[in-house]
């Protein structure tokens, strides 16, 4: 009788606990990271009565959470990759939208500018056309600044996010360490007592941490979890949490570095971090932001340099040589204060620049130059070397192992671009030289042949303006008896003062200078012209004459404007393989492809994540219908147990009344 009573009581208690647990499950149906809990019933130790074991009821053996470490690990790594891609994608898509936008992109501004130069070529004397050209130049500069500003804003935002993420990591690491302490204490209480809710909380924190950075987790025998990041740096060791700090790079203050704080000092681990939001941010910076800003800088630098060079070869409305249209960027050489050696870097050829940044370091024996875009390394000797359009001069005196230099050839290209010409008269649309046949005071021709000399084009500024008009005098014996041609006066010195020209065979046109004497006019603006037709020498020694002179009143001359406009279609950049426009559209395609790739991968990874979440939730998630059924189940068992006590009571009463009677 005491048996049935105690069995009934044990069942009552056990089923009460089961109903409590079911209620707990229902209560936490919406709690993030909660794993449903199950009560394991077990029979109590049977009692030996005479020759029989007789059952003694039920007890709660354990309350376990339903969880699967394997699936949880899978979910964590999917989570880490998905968060990385998400951070990468959100940065990339912003630039992607910006760069090809018909209103804010660079391409439309470049087109309008070059079209305005064509307009200037159409109408060099028109002050309106000049105004338009200057206005479009200003718009182009503004557009470069706007896009560069967007890069900088993106960088600021990225730095803030890195700071924020590092402090999040610190906060979570500390919480995990605290929970480790709680968990180990809880496990110490009894073998059967599992701190289910603490474990859930800690797993949820681990999961949150994996969204921020890729981690490795190792469980200890005492139930504590150790967490490692990067190349095995221990972020959480049992009940101790380490911290990360962020700081501007010692080389480039605009670049944020992440460091791991040891008790004895800090170690920069930026390059070792991967995965999670911080991995995505860093990858976005290395693969998209830095290259894009460098590329736009390269276009700005290339355009400014080419346009300046051409503009200086022209003449403005006042007959003066053109000046630089734009200010250009310069190489940024960044170094810590601790270097022993020193270097100087200059542009060797703008068209060979790659747009990458470079790091030069000294290892105690050699200087190694690393191209950061593809991590190619070359060894440079001390002295001058030319690499990728850069001229690098290394002074190895005092070099110390560990000397480091960061070279950013085009980073500030867009920022430094500014319009230097603000007066429409200063636009050099005209060519510097004119040619004409000899005339008398009234402009009447004095030559008797029909030879013509085309307007000279120029390729450099040396010797310009000409000190005196250069004269070409035809003679049938100019090059010695029977060798016809033109003698040059006020031109190159002997033996370059002669142009061989045979009217009998060359009247269709002959270009000077030509392969016979390619450098003939290098000191005279590098001029080039074509002679055609039949010059005459009616009186020996007084043949037809032509004069090449400074262009003094060419208000309607558009030759230099044409040359400026033609720069649009020439392959100046990326090793002479791409126009300015193509250099830009290639970048847009590249960023578009990377963004697209990230978007596709992100969708795939989110699918994976969704699946492992579903798999985990199959095991650990609460199903309300199931809990309702359990509730009914335990309630019925509870009612039956109560009935047992009632039966025991009846039995007892029966016995009592039997004794009483």
């Amino acid at each position: 009788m005491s048996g049935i009573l105690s069995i009934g009581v044990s069942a009552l208690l056990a089923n009460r606990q089961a109903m409590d647990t079911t209620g707990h499950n229902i209560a936490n149906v919406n709690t993030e990271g909660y794993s449903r809990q199950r009560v394991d019933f077990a029979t109590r130790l049977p009692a030996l009565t005479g020759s029989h074991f007789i059952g003694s009821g039920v007890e709660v053996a354990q309350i376990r959470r339903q969880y699967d470490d394997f699936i949880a690990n899978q979910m964590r790594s999917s989570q880490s990759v998905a968060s990385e891609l998400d951070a990468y994608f959100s940065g990339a898509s912003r630039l992607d939208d910006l760069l090809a936008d018909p209103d804010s992109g660079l391409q439309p501004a470049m087109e309008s500018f070059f079209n305005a130069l064509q307009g200037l070529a159409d109408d060099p004397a028109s002050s309106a056309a000049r105004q338009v050209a200057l206005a479009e130049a200003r718009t182009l500069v503004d557009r470069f600044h706007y896009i560069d500003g967007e890069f900088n804003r993106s960088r600021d935002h990225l730095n803030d996010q890195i700071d924020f993420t590092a402090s999040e990591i610190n906060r979570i690491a500390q919480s995990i360490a605290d929970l480790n302490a709680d968990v180990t204490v809880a496990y110490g209480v009894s073998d059967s007592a599992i701190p289910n809710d603490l474990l859930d909380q800690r797993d949820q924190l681990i999961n949150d941490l994996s969204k921020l950075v890729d981690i490795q987790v190792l469980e200890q025998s005492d139930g504590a979890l150790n967490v490692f990041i990067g190349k095995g740096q221990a972020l959480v060791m049992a009940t101790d949490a380490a911290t990360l700090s962020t700081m501007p790079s010692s080389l480039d203050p605009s670049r944020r570095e992440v460091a791991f704080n040891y008790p004895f000092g800090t170690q920069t681990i930026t390059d070792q971090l991967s995965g999670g939001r911080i991995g995505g941010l860093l990858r976005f910076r290395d693969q998209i932001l830095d290259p894009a800003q460098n590329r736009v800088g390269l276009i700005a630098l290339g355009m400014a340099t080419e346009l300046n060079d051409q503009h200086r070869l022209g003449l403005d409305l006042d007959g003066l040589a053109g000046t630089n249209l734009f200010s250009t960027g310069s190489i940024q050489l960044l170094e810590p204060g601790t270097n022993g050696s020193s270097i100087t870097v200059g542009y060797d050829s703008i068209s060979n620049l790659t747009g990458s940044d470079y790091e030069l370091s000294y290892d105690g024996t050699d200087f190694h130059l690393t191209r950061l875009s593809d991590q190619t390394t070359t060894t440079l000797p001390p002295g001058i070397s030319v690499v990728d359009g850069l001229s690098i001069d290394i002074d190895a005196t005092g070099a110390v192992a560990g000397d480091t230099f960061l070279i950013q050839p085009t980073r500030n290209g867009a920022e430094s671009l500014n319009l230097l010409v603000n007066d429409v008269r200063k636009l050099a649309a005209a060519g510097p030289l004119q040619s004409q046949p000899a005339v008398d005071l009234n402009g009447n021709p004095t030559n008797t042949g029909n030879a013509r000399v085309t307007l000279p084009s120029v390729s450099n500024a040396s010797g310009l303006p000409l000190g005196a008009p250069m004269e070409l005098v035809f003679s049938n014996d100019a090059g010695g008896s029977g060798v016809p041609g033109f003698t040059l006066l006020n031109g190159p010195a002997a033996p370059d003062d002669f142009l061989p020209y045979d009217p009998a065979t060359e009247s269709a046109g002959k270009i000077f200078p030509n392969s016979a004497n390619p450098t003939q006019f290098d000191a005279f603006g590098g001029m080039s012209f074509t002679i055609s037709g039949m010059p005459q020498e009616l009186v020996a020694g007084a043949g037809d004459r032509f004069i090449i002179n400074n262009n003094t009143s060419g208000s309607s001359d558009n030759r230099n404007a044409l040359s400026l406009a033609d720069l649009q279609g020439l392959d100046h950049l990326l090793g002479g393989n791409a126009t300015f426009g193509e250099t830009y559209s290639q970048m847009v395609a590249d960023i578009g492809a990377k963004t697209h790739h990230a978007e596709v991968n992100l969708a795939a990874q989110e699918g994976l994540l969704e699946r492992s979440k579903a798999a985990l939730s199959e095991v650990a998630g609460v199903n309300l219908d199931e809990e309702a059924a359990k509730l009914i189940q335990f309630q019925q068992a509870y009612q039956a147990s109560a009935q047992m006590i009632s039966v025991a009571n009846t039995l007892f009463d029966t016995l009592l009344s039997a004794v009483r009677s």
Partner: protein
Amino acid sequence: MDRISTSMLFDRGVSGMLQQQAKLSKTELQLATGKRIMSPRDDPAAAAYLLDLRSTISQVEQYQANSDRARARLELEETTLKGVGDLMPRILELAIQGQNDTNTAPDRNAIAMELRQLNDELLALANTKDSNGEYIFAGFDADSPPFTNPVEGTYTYRGDMGSRQLRISATRQVQDRDNGFDVFMNVEIATGATPGERRNIFETIHQVITGLEANAPDSAYLDDIHLAQQHVLDYRVSSGARLNTIEQQNNVNADFLLTMQTAQSEVEDLDYLEAVSRFQQQLLALEAAQQSFSKVQGLSLFNYL
């Protein structure tokens, strides 16, 4: 294990609806803008191709604008030279008439008078200005009149030998005017002291005038006037030929533009038929997701407890 957690059921329903909404919103944006590609990541290769296409189109449109300029200028030159060409037969006629021995000195003076007027007209034509105020026969020095007549019988050219080119295609430039030296000054004559000697048209006519006024016309100048007439005609033909060149290039450019714009539209523009049917489908899918969500969420065992 056939169990699914309640929150997963809920999340799935919600994320299903969100996904359908996102798709629907993208299609809606495509329909609103008529563009297939919203940002380069939608189709990176096509996006870069589009940038290059737009750049090419903008350049060719500029070439068309350039050739419109060149055409207007050449038409003005052509018209002006036609004006010169219209004067020359009358000048030749008068010069021939002056040769006639039946003329008296007053007759010849009268003829000379008309010739003077015609020569002035010729000079005025040579100093023609365009709508921008540029003297069309002054070479590059186009802001002052190129031809002057400082002293009786002397005509001077103050322009230069510039000849301006405009770009009308990536590979083609066309000269938009001729300088006055070539057209009016550098004219071969038959009456020179040496072979190949040249004289300007105005002075040739002046020679005829002075001969008539002295009542001693020299028939040799008739040949000079004839040569001058031919010389001007040559330049008129040349400017007409350049107008033809422009016309041809214009047509080529227009065809090219059409091809490029068609290509652009094929790459960039939305296939409305496809997009509208996609829109309908997505609308249906969203409605289905919403209905199934509300039905499924309405079911619970607790309703029966």
